[in-house]
């Protein structure tokens, strides 16, 4: 765990080998799964989540989202605590189909977030003295306890930010630099149209939006 989550992100940013897993194989199999699932969907109970791939979970979540306007809530939520990342739900929201290998990142991300919870408790004790610089006369060494730097989010919880104004951006532009609310014609409309993959003048073609049974 230590080496994995020692990196700021729960995945190694510098691994050249895994940067581009173009899932052409799984793409084909996803279509097959999809075709299979169309038949399965008529059955009364959805397949158990733990057996399902990331993609099938994604589809199930999508069905629920379409029928209700309330976003899905992870059933195991602790009152007041932040819920851990629900990868299928995130993938749905981001409209990215995850391959089965990619869906396996859920436990890794989960580890980071679990771990952040533990460190949060630790930091509440040890961060306070170091933030208040100069209280301890003499030694300014921190406790001889190894720390890793994976709990990005957790560190923010420990800080008192009650009265601090959020900064939308660096705030360099003095005054309002919005331009006049007047539409202008863009000269190269044709070039924009040329870039569209499925164009059927004057429509941009997309597949049907809702998949009705």
């Amino acid at each position, binding site marked *: 765990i230590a080496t994995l989550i020692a990196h*700021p992100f729960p995945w190694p940013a510098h691994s050249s080998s895994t940067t581009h897993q173009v899932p052409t194989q799984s793409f084909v199999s996803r279509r097959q799964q999809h075709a299979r699932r169309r038949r399965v969907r008529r059955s009364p109970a959805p397949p158990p989540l733990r057996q399902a791939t990331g993609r099938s979970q994604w589809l199930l979540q999508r069905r629920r989202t379409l029928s209700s306007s309330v976003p899905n809530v992870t059933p195991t939520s602790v009152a007041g605590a932040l819920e851990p*990342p629900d990868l299928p739900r995130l993938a749905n929201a981001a409209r990215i189909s995850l391959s089965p290998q990619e869906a396996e990142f859920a436990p890794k991300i989960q580890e980071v977030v679990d771990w952040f919870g533990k460190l949060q408790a630790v930091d509440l004790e040890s961060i306070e003295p170091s933030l208040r610089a100069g209280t301890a006369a003499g030694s300014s060494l921190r406790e001889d306890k190894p720390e890793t730097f994976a*709990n990005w989010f957790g560190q923010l919880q420990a800080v008192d930010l009650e009265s601090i104004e959020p900064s939308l951006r660096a705030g360099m532009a003095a005054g309002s630099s919005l331009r006049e609310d007047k539409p202008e014609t863009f000269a190269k409309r044709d070039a924009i149209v040329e870039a569209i993959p499925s164009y059927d003048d004057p429509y941009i073609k997309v*597949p049907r939006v809702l998949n009705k049974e």
Partner: protein
Amino acid sequence: MPPPLQAHRLLISHRRLPTPARRRFTAVSSVQSPPAKTLAPGPAASSVLSIRESLLSGERTAAEITAEYLSRLHRTEPSVRSFIHVAEAAAQREAEELDRRIASEGKDALGPLAGVLVGVKDNLCTANMPSTGGSRILEGYQPAYDATAVRLLREAGAIVVGKTNLDEFGMGSTTEGSAFQVTKNPWDDSRVPGGSSGGSASAVSARQCVVSLGSDTGGSVRQPASFCGVVGLKPTYGRVSRFGLMAYASSLDVVGCFGSSVFDTATILSVVSGHDKMDSTSSSQDVPDYASELVSLDSLESKPLNGLRIGIIQETLGEGVDIGVASSIKAAASHLEQLGSVVEEVSLPSFSLGLPAYYILASSEASSNLSRYDGIRYGRQISADDLNELYGESRANGLGHEVKMRILMGTYALSAGYYDAYYKRAQQVRTLVKESFKGALERFDILVSPAAPSAAYKIGEKINDPLAMYAGDIMTVNVNLAGLPALVVPCGFVEGGPAGLPIGLQMIGSPFSEGNLLRVGHIFEQTLQNFSFVPPLSSER
């Protein structure tokens, strides 16, 4: 003429060469260096100026200059691979066109960048060239317009020679994250050039082009400048229009520039800066002629930086920083002292909080900005039975691993009910970081630090040292949070590679103080003796 600085005393990690003939510096003195081929060590000269002089005097034509650069580009590209796309025919045409105009109009035809070849990072839109953002999802995409920075360069007479390689959509710090190719560091082809603007830095370093444009969201111009031994500038947020820059994190992104000298970097900054009505975050502040404020060595007083207060940021020289880097920075600081400035250490305790805040903000904004790559309006489309599947498949197929992970993390941080805990708190921390810098910049004119905790590392090397990763990011991201300008100037070498590996000194100033940073950087560069920051491969003819 100021008294010669005693470089051999300044840099403890290096030794002066024994021979009286001025040779290119090597870090390992026991290695027999090849005889200096064309370039003697010495302060960097401005290529922009020398091109301009050649064209004015008629000594060379634009076509000849372009041919020279293109031939060097072709010779070095198989090794370095800076470019995703080279626009050879267009560059030659534009050069010939410029020659025709010089012949008929004389020197009135010369814009400030006439005949200067520029590389443009592939996340900046160029109308007549593919612009991929380093991603398969935009493979083959040709934008309908030029980014404002590119348009301004062209209007000044520059010739865009090609699009340089980058980590996909700017996410990464080695350029290994590109969907297309891995760029090598011109100083050692087993090492990375840095990232995400690795191609832009290596192209200038290998002298494949004169200057180049990059982008900096969390250090993506400064770190590759340090790794490749070139000058890199991150302007103040709002100094340069972001119109046409493929957005990664809109509140952090800036368009930056690379040059082989401070003078060249200053020249292109003047050209691309200014208010743009297409970018409402761009500033209306006047754009000075930055290069005109850079004086030559001869007219410098003996203590040209007299009265300048410089603060070294303590948090950037702690654990995880290479000893060679730390000593180069300290040597650079003492060089600055010899020039008349006063150097002290300063602590910015909010720096460590800036790191999680940066990652939350960058991931969150990226998750929103990258939602436009949906396979509908442009780019690669995977056909599907319904719309959601089309989105899901197109994005799964076209986006790389790192990009997907950051989008998912950002989606998490922005989920309903999480905003207060993450994004809002990150913005509050941004306020703290801004105020902390502001306080320090009242006591000091310039803050300095390394731009990276080490020199360029090996391609494919997995960095398992958490302290080194942390130490690296902490040097750069806080500057983006505060929107401040920063200049990286090569200042020394550490051992490694055939001729040593360069190290850059980062100088940070208050908002819109690029002029001051460039002035100080120029004086530093011109008085730094016994170094040549030209990598071995590009000095061969």
